[in-house]
């Protein structure tokens, strides 16, 4: 009697996340991803300029709906993302340990911090207006109110060296206020980003609000920075490209958050430092009369 052959495991395909769907790169390319210690983990999609273009289109399309939701609703959805991550924490922990080269215990801590960061920014959604905006006491018979609004489509370059916590720390503050994002994952450690995309897809986050690309920073960042329909850039992971990207962004006067030396992502209460750069303040005047 023949022995039962060993079961062959079903491996995951790591794909892009664009407009709520998981396409391969339109270029058909992929690239090998290795762990911090150099062993092969998987192949990730190698996104192209055209994938950047598609992601920007998806983000723009999602913007009116997402920014038009109530802040309460956005907060609930971000909280839902935290719930979805919690449910997959073992998967995240394993990927973070491999990607960041940390111990299993440290990886658990990083996953916890990432989950908590969603909760943190979920709570901000319906408080930003009250902290950043408000009524202004103008010297005349006018009701004058300043209110923050999301800037629009934000290009986000996820930081290196913190494949999940760093990623969440730059994505959540951008979308909590109603922006939509095109995020380029850490080139070296993109797998947690793809897993996050899968968590986002199973939360109630509308397709196109967060679009996640994996690939070469040097290939993806310039078209993103130069794209006229992108309103702002978070250069957290730009590295040596930061100056060039900022210059590209100047062509359409994008708002730019430069990489900061202090970006260690450990702070559990980062405040609005990563929220404010992607807000526009609208001030509305209205006469007070009979």
């Amino acid at each position, binding site marked *: 009697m023949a022995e039962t052959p060993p079961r062959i495991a079903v491996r995951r395909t790591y794909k892009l996340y664009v407009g709520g769907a998981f396409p391969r790169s339109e270029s058909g390319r992929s690239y090998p991803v290795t762990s911090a210690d150099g062993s092969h983990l998987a192949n990730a999609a190698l996104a192209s300029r055209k994938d950047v273009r598609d992601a920007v289109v998806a983000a723009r399309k999602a913007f009116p709906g997402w920014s038009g939701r109530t802040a309460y609703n956005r907060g609930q959805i971000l909280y839902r993302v935290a719930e979805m991550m919690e449910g997959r924490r073992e998967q995240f922990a394993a990927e973070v340990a491999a990607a960041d080269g940390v111990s299993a215990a440290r990886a658990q801590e990083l996953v916890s911090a990432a989950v908590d960061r969603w909760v943190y920014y979920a709570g901000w959604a319906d408080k930003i207006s009250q902290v950043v905006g408000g009524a202004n006491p103008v010297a005349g*018979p*006018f009701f004058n109110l300043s209110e923050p609004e999301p800037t629009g489509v934000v290009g986000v370059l996820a930081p290196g060296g913190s494949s999940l916590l760093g990623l969440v720390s730059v994505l959540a503050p951008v979308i909590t206020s109603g922006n939509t994002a095109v995020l380029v994952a850490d080139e070296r450690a993109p797998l947690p980003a793809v897993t996050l995309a899968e968590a986002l897809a199973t939360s109630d986050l509308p397709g196109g609000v967060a679009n996640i690309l994996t690939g070469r920073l040097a290939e993806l960042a310039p078209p993103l920075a130069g794209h006229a329909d992108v309103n702002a850039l978070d250069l957290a992971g730009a590295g040596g490209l930061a100056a060039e990207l900022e210059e590209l962004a100047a062509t359409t006067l994008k708002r730019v958050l430069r990489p900061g030396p202090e970006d260690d992502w450990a702070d559990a209460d980062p405040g609005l430092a990563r929220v404010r750069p992607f807000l526009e303040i609208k001030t509305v005047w209205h006469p007070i*009369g*009979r």
Partner: protein
Amino acid sequence: MPDTIPGSLRAYLHGLPGVDEVGVQRRAAGLATRSIKTTAKRQAIDLAIRMVDLTTLEGADTPGKVRALAAKAVRPDPADPSVPSVAALCVYPDMISTAARALAGTGVGLASVATGFPAGRTSLEVKLSDTATAVEAGASEIDMVIDRGAFLAGDYAKVFDEIVAVKEQCGEAHLKVILETGELVTYDNVRRASWLALHAGADFIKTSTGKVTPAATLPVTLVMLEAVRDYQAATGRQAGVKPAGGIRTTKDAIRYLVLVKEIAGDDWLDPAWFRLGASTLLNDLLMQRTKLGTGQYSGPDYYTID
């Protein structure tokens, strides 16, 4: 003949464009900064004098007081014959015969308030007989008050019909309809009341009785000037505007003339189409006129108190 308004009066009046209070006040304040100097000031003062409805509406009015004021109306400055006469003398109905005798042959108009002035809280019969008495006694102009209570209660038809009836009673006399804007409060109401009065046949719309605060203001007058301007554009009929109450200085009067010029237009810069209801204003106009002539400031002792 009153105009025929299709559909309900309420729908019509509430269909007029709104008036933004802050906007109209800013426009009036902006026009108040017009700087009227030298020749323009001279023109303005003489025009303002010719537009004055010299008014006494006191319980203490006597024939003597009215005769003195009539003399002043005809020749405001006895020392200077170049000063024009005012437009009209405005008195209570019981003073008309006295005033008529004093003004006979002078060309100065004789206006009488009527219809239970100033509150207007009497029956239509009394209002009509009040009007008839005044016209019979020689009034060439009737200043009636509208029923503000009915207006504020939304009974526009009652206000309309009353104006129509009084207008009929006036015969040849010109009818000025006092809206008492200080009681209407909002500019929307002022606009609606203006159009209502115009459609009912008013020859003039007038801001105030002078017995309610606030009386005439620049923004209220501005809204009323817009009404007569637009009413003319809509119907072809020109009507006049009379702010009354609280206009005391030459500077005030000139600001009203600037409004007339820039809101209604030059066609209204005529006593036939714009009046200033006032009592103490006249002496200030005379003082400023002298100052322009002599270059020296004058004093109140040099003008008659009547």
